[in-house]
């Protein structure tokens, strides 16, 4: 009788040592290496990972762009970017280690064979830095360039190691284009190799939404239509378009924010508990709830565009006066909508969502407004200061959670006021919150796709957005319809007033 080979003994010395999230040797190639995203977010994020010893020892970065530049010049530019945009102190030794594995390739993928330069550079990195043929391609390029790069690099996949693809938003511009892009990508890459990034999912407070809901026994029993009156999700920006007219004129608020960030926040708020925290379990639940979002009719969607106004006392131009924006532009800079989630948990509970540019303050919040107490035994006038209970999740800034509760005003009488109980994220935990890109890049290096968007998820998002914008092709709005520095057009207020509700004020 032949004996089965003995199973390799587990390492007893690792018992009790905390598991490290350590990626395998690899090289990350950033397409769009001379762009704003690379300088502001990607390279500073990679530096922060290096600062915390979270990158593998055998690691390389290849920057790819059309601009002619030497390795040295690119490294110098990126060093300045880290100094300017990094969240950690600049340490020369950390930077030198990282920069040693940085290469730059000037090439144009429109030219046949442009990818050859990239492949040669990556092969050389495998030799020099031991990156073992493992590749991450980060597409930080305009949507028009994505397909060309995917096809070119897909045809030249490394024979050794693994390959992963990070695709920045916007992923397509409607359902049809997103489906087309998914088809093209899947000709060369498996779904498990595709990491569609929505940086909101990398934010601690967004992830905390899952912890708040599913790690605390007190919330889930009341997280439904029986106890919740409605939900308000606000993604408000104080900034204008900051010189991004070329992109924004085509995208507008609905494609820039609603299709991705807003619907992600809505899905995380409304989804059912996943059976575990693996990528597919979480994404299955998100897809289920996105499918359940009722297509909003034209009466339930409001769009707006800002005119001139004041931000922090300073006069700012209207959208149509911004550089490279058409003087008769019909691009929306504001969207509000009333969504319904057609399932057992949420039937008839509205989710009011709004996003806009040039609003009075920057804030992203999810407000869960509970129904009023059924029969408060107090005289009516004592309750004047009492508002409904609201669980407010601050995604940014001032990350945290607060709960508005009624409390008696001290004194002889019985007067009730609403007070806030606050949990401030930064006040309770030691470490500064990591930048979303740090978390997401590291997750990709580790092959963990939980916080990335799956093909069917992105297609469901587009289906909702397509339904929202379809009626817009038929009418011509009177823009601008709100002044910069205000909370959007009057029609957005009416959207809630019709239901006897109002937007939260601040």
């Amino acid at each position, binding site marked *: 009788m032949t004996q089965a080979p003995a199973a390799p*003994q587990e390492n*007893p*010395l*690792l*018992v*009790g040592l905390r598991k490290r999230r350590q990626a395998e040797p690899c090289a990350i190639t950033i397409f769009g290496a001379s762009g704003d995203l690379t300088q502001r977010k990607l390279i500073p994020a990679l530096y922060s990972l290096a600062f915390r010893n979270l990158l593998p020892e055998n690691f390389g970065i290849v920057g790819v762009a059309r601009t002619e530049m030497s390795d040295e010049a690119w490294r110098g530019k990126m060093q300045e970017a880290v100094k300017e945009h990094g969240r950690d102190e600049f340490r020369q030794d950390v930077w030198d280690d990282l920069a040693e594995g940085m290469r730059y390739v000037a090439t144009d993928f429109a030219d046949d064979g442009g990818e050859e330069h990239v492949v040669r550079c990556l092969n050389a990195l495998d030799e020099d830095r031991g990156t073992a043929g493992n590749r991450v391609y980060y597409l930080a390029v305009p949507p028009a360039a994505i397909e060309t790069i995917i096809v070119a690099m897909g045809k030249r996949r490394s024979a050794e190691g693994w390959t992963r693809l990070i695709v920045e938003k916007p992923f397509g511009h409607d359902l049809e284009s997103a489906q087309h892009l998914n088809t093209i990508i899947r000709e060369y890459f498996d779904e498990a190799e595709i990491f569609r990034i929505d940086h909101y999912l990398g934010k601690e407070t967004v992830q905390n939404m899952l912890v708040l809901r599913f790690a605390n026994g007190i919330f889930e029993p009341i997280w439904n239509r029986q106890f919740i009156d409605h939900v308000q999700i606000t993604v408000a920006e104080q900034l204008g378009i900051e010189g991004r007219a070329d992109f924004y004129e085509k995208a507008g608020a609905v494609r820039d924010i609603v299709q991705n960030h807003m619907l992600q926040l809505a899905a995380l708020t409304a989804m059912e508990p996943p059976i575990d925290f693996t990528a597919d379990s979480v994404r299955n639940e998100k897809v289920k709830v996105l499918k359940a979002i009722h297509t909003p009719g034209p009466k339930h969607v409001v769009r707006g565009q800002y005119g001139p106004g004041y931000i922090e006392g300073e006069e700012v131009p209207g959208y149509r006066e911004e550089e490279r924006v058409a003087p008769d532009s019909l691009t929306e800079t504001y969207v509000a909508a009333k969504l319904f989630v057609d399932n057992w948990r949420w039937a008839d509970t509205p989710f009011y969502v709004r996003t806009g540019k040039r609003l009075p303050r920057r804030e992203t919040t999810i407000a869960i407004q509970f129904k009023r107490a059924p029969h408060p035994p107090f005289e009516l006038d004592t309750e004047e200061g009492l508002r409904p209970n609201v669980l407010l999740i601050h995604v940014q800034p*001032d990350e945290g959670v607060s709960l508005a509760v009624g409390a008696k005003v001290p004194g002889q009488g019985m007067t009730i006021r609403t007070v806030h109980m*606050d949990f401030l994220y930064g006040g309770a935990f030691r470490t500064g919150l990591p930048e979303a890109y740090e978390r997401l890049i590291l997750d990709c290096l580790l092959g963990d796709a939980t916080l990335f968007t799956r093909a069917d998820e992105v297609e469901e998002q587009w289906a909702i957005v397509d339904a929202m914008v379809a009626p817009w092709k038929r009418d011509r709005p009177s823009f601008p319809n709100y002044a910069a520095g205000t909370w959007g057009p009057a029609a957005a207020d009416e959207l809630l007033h019709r239901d006897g509700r109002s937007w939260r004020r601040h």
Partner: protein
Amino acid sequence: MVENVTLTEVERQLGELRAASSAPGELPRLRTSVLTHMAWVPERWVEAATETLAGLAERHPSRTILLFPRPNDDRDALDAEVDLRCFLRGGEEREVCSEVISIRLCGKRASAPASVVQPLLVPDLPVFLRWRGQCPWGAAELEELVEVTDRMIVDSGEWPDAEWAYSRLAEILDRVVVSDIAWARTEPWRRAVAALWPNVAGAEEIRVAGPQAEAALLARWLGTRLDRDVELRHEAAGEIELVEIDGRQVKPERRDRTTSSDLLSDQLEIFERDRPYEEVVRSFSSAAT
């Protein structure tokens, strides 16, 4: 420090400080706590403890209760000082405040500290006790505080005879979870040794140039994990400088220098029992019998 105070007065002072901490019309400061942090600080450790505490409030918003035992004082009394340490986190509008209560336990009060701290513990949050210096094994003050503590943090590097003390420490492991900062300092070395598996499976000797406590812990760890006798060759040094297994040098990852605040701060983030450490500590006890 105000002499001869009652705990009611201490609590009133805390309330007054909180109320006075924000001017009318300003956003109120937040009191956030993730734990109660007690520290037992005999006279010779006061300076070191104060240094360690600097900056800790910002990392772990908590109610800190500093206990300064003065058993030889003529008076049987409590002296106390209450302080609110507030800080503004980057990008946030409101200050977050932590409370620091310093209490001098004079005379007989030093042997009944639990009755002093219990009214001051933040309800429903874990209680961490940092015991500076050698623990008075079997003494009432230690026994009492262990009973109200979820996790005790020691630094066996502060103990004059660590190997003997481990056998006494083993006696309280069933009652309280223990963190040892000396053990934490060995972590990068343990990780580096673990990376040598399976080539160290038959290790017979470990050579350590470093403090006695850390050398002893490393040797016992290797022995208990591999379930074999591993001989220790120890050379004294201020910190671990060298580890060799059967003549093969172990190289830990590059690691930034950590301050005593960093080390304590790390321990305040750990909640679970460290079974390999407990096994190591108990091995000293079984060796002694």
